[in-house]
């Protein structure tokens, strides 16, 4: 399928976690690549939400159900267990209240799938140690005073939050910058040092 080739590797990994014919909400759906893929290849009832009106217009123009909305404020409108999966890719670090967003995701969905850039990566640690300045990498590429990533966290931080809030990690992966799988999945410590992104499948314990 033509849509498949263009899809970001991390979206393909997310799609791999989703069972066919399920109900999915993709928060930060952008132009709808994931929801289109899920509808075409897995017959999912997939819908999108995005803060950016241009992205939503693009998704709707492609015939995909998407609406403009804010993860921080608009998830409260959905009923409990409205979805089988609620997806939040590369956005958790940019929301106002990540903990509350996660709580809402697991209220309106049975599963939450979350990906975020890993702030524990060795290059970031090195830069901070050696230069004493806020690190800048290809992922963390905006200076501290204008970055939208206001809540950076590491893979270990995220494990700790899941523990505190009682979420069961059903599956997790570390992915490098290009989105390819890295071999650290057995060791949380190594993943936290070498993984560019963390990808988690959660459910309420």
């Amino acid at each position, binding site marked *: 399928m033509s849509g498949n080739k263009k899809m970001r590797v991390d979206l393909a990994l997310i799609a791999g976690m989703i069972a066919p014919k399920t109900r999915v909400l993709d928060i930060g759906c952008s132009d709808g690549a994931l929801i289109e893929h899920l509808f075409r290849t897995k017959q999912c009832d997939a819908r999108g939400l995005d803060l950016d009106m241009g992205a939503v217009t693009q998704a709707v123009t*492609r015939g995909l159900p998407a*609406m403009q909305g804010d993860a921080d404020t*608009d998830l409260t*409108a959905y009923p409990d267990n409205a979805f089988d999966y609620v997806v939040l890719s590369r956005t958790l670090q940019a929301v106002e209240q990540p903990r509350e967003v996660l709580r809402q995701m697991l209220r309106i969905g049975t599963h939450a799938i979350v990906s975020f850039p890993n702030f524990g990566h060795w290059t970031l640690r090195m830069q901070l140690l050696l230069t004493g300045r806020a690190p800048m990498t290809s992922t963390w590429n905006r200076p501290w005073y204008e970055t939208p990533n206001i809540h950076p966290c590491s893979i270990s931080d995220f494990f700790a939050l899941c523990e505190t809030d009682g979420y069961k990690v059903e599956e997790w992966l570390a992915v490098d910058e290009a989105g390819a799988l890295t071999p650290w999945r057995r060791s949380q410590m190594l993943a936290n040092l070498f993984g560019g992104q963390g990808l988690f499948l959660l459910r309420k314990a």
Partner: protein
Amino acid sequence: MDQSAAQTEPQHDSVTFPEGLTLDCGRQLQTLTVAYRCYGTLNATRRNAILICHALTGDQYVAERNPVTGKPGWWERVVGPGRPVDTDKFFVICANVLGGCMGSTGPSSPHDDNPAEPWGKDFPPVTIHDMVRAQKRLIDHLGIEKLFAVVGGSMGGMQALSWAAQYPDAVFAAVPVATAPYHSAQNIAFHEIGRQAIAGDPNFHAGRYWAHGVTPERGLAVARMTAHITYVSEAALTRKFGRKLQDAAELSSLGDRFEVESYLQYQGSSFVRRFDANSYLTITRAMDLFDLAADHGGVLANAFAGSKTRFLLVSFSSDWLFPTAQSRLMARALNHVAANVSFLEVISDKGHDAFLLDEPDFHRSLGGFLTGCAEHAGLK
């Protein structure tokens, strides 16, 4: 009937239902006539029909020259061959609303108790839901069990919402554009100015102006002028007119007129030639009465509980008559019942009227939404 009117009025295609219609107010219309136009071809399964609902002063001539005004159809940008509502693919129906003055039963139709005279001010109050029930009769008459889509802007959007709430199984997709789930106090207030202007016109004669061979032109024109201001944004008026003067380079005498004044007067005077004052009173009241939440125990979401209909809500950023907040309220209500809803705000400085104008983002997303829905509905 008024003979001069009978001579100049074109014939409108219509169907009459001799069993009449029971209205929300409890009264019964003994007969019901619905005037309508169709475009495109109904397919073998009768599943490709789209109903277009018109706004307060619109009519059924959505995609063709209007026989009364001689102007192009009011939504030719949206409805037609190759347009977002593509008449090469879909069978498109548009009906004049109940209470209107373009052939459907309304205040200028023969009085049930005295057919020699029109209803005039005696015409019973109707609601948006009544208008939709009249349209449902037409759809049944055309042999259509389920509409593929109901699309409408402003008051047409209210009808689309009413369709989705009253007949959820008969609507595959609904597109309420630039509309609201209830008419706000501000909206009612503007309507009331218009109604007062009509009622205060000496030619109104307590609604029996037809008996005196006159029409309350002044009042109706002022009503239209007031309403027209609410349809445009301050930015659009500034862009179009600014403080430019009519026939003068600079303000030389206090008698000089601004361009915006003559524009508004033109809007008013062209309107009175095509619209009936009693219809204006009836339809503005129907809009004021609209409150979907109140009809469902005060909870808007209840209107759509269990709905399988796919929704597209569209608002326009500079629309202050039906602001984006109203569409967002509907989107949230639809989320509350986990309905399939798309929602977007089109950035435009053209105000409420934007839904009728050249807005490529709106047209593209409407076309894409309908194409996507057609795939889900199994339409080729």
